[in-house]
């Protein structure tokens, strides 16, 4: 099979800012990023992790201090690349006095495009054709986001950068934006999404990278990163100490009123535990597979690098598990 071409490739891309208080800060530190053509790529990270800085560097709006990067085969900073890419920033502001159609005409003129039929077709695609004569000031947040997506399609881009595309939107608008993003992939475009909406990302992204404090902490296919998951086994007739004495490697045990709740990962441990319970005349009450979620991976990745926050981040999770005990 032919390897997929890289839509974005960065090597050791670094951006440093000087702060009067903290001195030099590496906002993005030796970033190695690989985004394949035709995929939806999720770029995740907590606030201040360096997501927007990375996007701005890829767009050539700010300049890296070192390292290199290529977007669709061209070096970053090459204005020519802007003919085949597009960008929708976080909480964008569009000139409020313009109507939806005028806005598209304005952005079209920056490409030398003055095809009103195309603009109308794009507004129809984002379901704004009935509101194209309204001014942007009359648009809701969701409509503004959709007109932003329409303007991003003017040049028929191969690669679209979306910074928090669903931030602050209601569930219906979320769904509309999500469907549009999926349609971009179906049309063969590459979509690079920076987002906090992990459930959204999990639903639509093929691959993700998690950036923390300017460093890529995880990168890969979502299916591989979320592979595994755990299994929760509730059993009666055995005690917590009895389970501990079995010498199982990767399990956590909690006492319940009439037995134990065992959380295991390895198939070997799961089988060994079930066999041991049966052998000691205990009873398996339930076996519930728990799929690994992107949120778990994200919190684990971010808190692993920030031990002081780990306790706070994992505390609610513990409460949820213990809820079965109550």
């Amino acid at each position: 099979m032919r390897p997929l071409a890289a839509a974005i490739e960065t090597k050791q891309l670094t951006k440093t800012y000087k702060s009067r208080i903290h001195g030099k800060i590496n906002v993005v530190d030796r970033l190695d990023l690989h985004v394949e053509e035709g995929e939806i790529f999720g770029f995740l990270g907590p606030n201040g992790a360096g997501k927007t800085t990375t996007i701005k560097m890829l767009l050539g709006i700010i300049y890296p201090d070192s390292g290199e990067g290529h977007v669709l085969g061209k070096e970053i900073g090459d204005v020519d690349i802007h003919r085949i890419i597009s960008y929708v920033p976080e909480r964008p502001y569009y000139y409020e006095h313009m109507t939806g159609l005028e806005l598209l005409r304005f952005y079209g003129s920056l490409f030398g495009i003055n095809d009103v039929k195309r603009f109308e077709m794009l507004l129809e695609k984002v379901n704004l054709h009935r509101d194209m004569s309204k001014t942007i000031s009359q648009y809701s947040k969701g409509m503004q986001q959709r007109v932003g997506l329409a303007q991003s399609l003017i040049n028929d881009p191969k690669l679209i950068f979306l910074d928090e595309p669903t931030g602050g939107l209601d569930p219906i608008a979320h769904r509309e934006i999500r469907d549009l993003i999926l349609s971009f992939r179906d049309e063969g475009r590459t979509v690079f999404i920076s987002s906090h909406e992990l459930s959204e990302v999990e639903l639509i992204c093929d691959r993700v990278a998690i950036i923390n404090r300017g460093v890529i902490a995880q990168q890969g296919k979502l299916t591989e990163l979320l592979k595994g998951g755990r299994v929760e086994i509730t059993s009666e007739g055995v005690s917590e100490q009895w389970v501990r004495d079995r010498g199982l490697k990767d399990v956590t045990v909690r006492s319940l009123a009439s037995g134990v709740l065992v959380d295991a990962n390895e198939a070997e441990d799961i089988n060994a535990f079930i066999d041991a319970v049966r052998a000691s005349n205990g009873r398996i009450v339930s076996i519930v597979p728990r799929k690994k979620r992107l949120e778990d991976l994200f919190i684990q990745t971010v808190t692993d690098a920030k031990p002081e926050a780990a306790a706070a981040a994992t505390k609610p999770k513990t409460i949820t598990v213990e809820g079965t005990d109550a």
Partner: protein
Amino acid sequence: MLSPIFSIANTTVREAIRRKVLLIILLVGVVFLVIAPGLGALSARSETTVLRGLLLGVIQITSAVIAIVLTVYMIPNEIERRTIYTILSKPVQRWQFLIGKYLGAVSALAMMMFLMSFIMVFTFYLQQGQNATAALDLLKAPAMYFVQMSLLAAVAIFFSTFVSPIVNFFLSGGLYLLGSLFAPFFQTLEESQGTPAATKLFAKFINVILPNFANYNVQNPIINPGQVIQNEQQYFIQNTLYGLVYIAALILGGILVFDRREV
């Protein structure tokens, strides 16, 4: 190459003429122009002289305030509202963006100055027994003020590429006052026979650096018919060219700064 510049300029004009703060300043100017005949009547001096002075003074001050307020927020606003990102992520060079913004600002300024000039001429025409020649003669001053304000807008656009709007307001305003009040002094110092060589050099340096806004204050010959500008046409052409060269230098400087600026 020019299409993005004109698009950005056009959008800038449409934004500018909707800015409430500018409309309020313009409205205040217009109100003063309309009531100027009443204020002129209160003066002990010749009513016509005072009226001319008042009308031209109102236009100049209002235009200067509009030029500064219009331009100091222009680039910072685009960055703060993130509009600049959607524009610079299109095939638009930073120099095209800056020139487009400047041309838009100057066009909006021209529209506002045209309106004030029209009201000024109309007011003077009605007040002075419908003397059309005298009324139209007043237009020489706003024409030169327009070059002056375009220069002031270029100063403010240049500073807006690297300082905050508030600092820019005082820098541009200060430079306008310095260039209006002290440029003639340094010019005289440079040209005077008795000036020591070092002082002459210093005065020459200041004359090169400091834009000479005083060149455009042509109201005196209009207010006082006894005063004349020798070879008026040549004076206007020379100073317009001076302004254009200065504007070009400032825009070029702004482009060089803005090109490497992190936005």
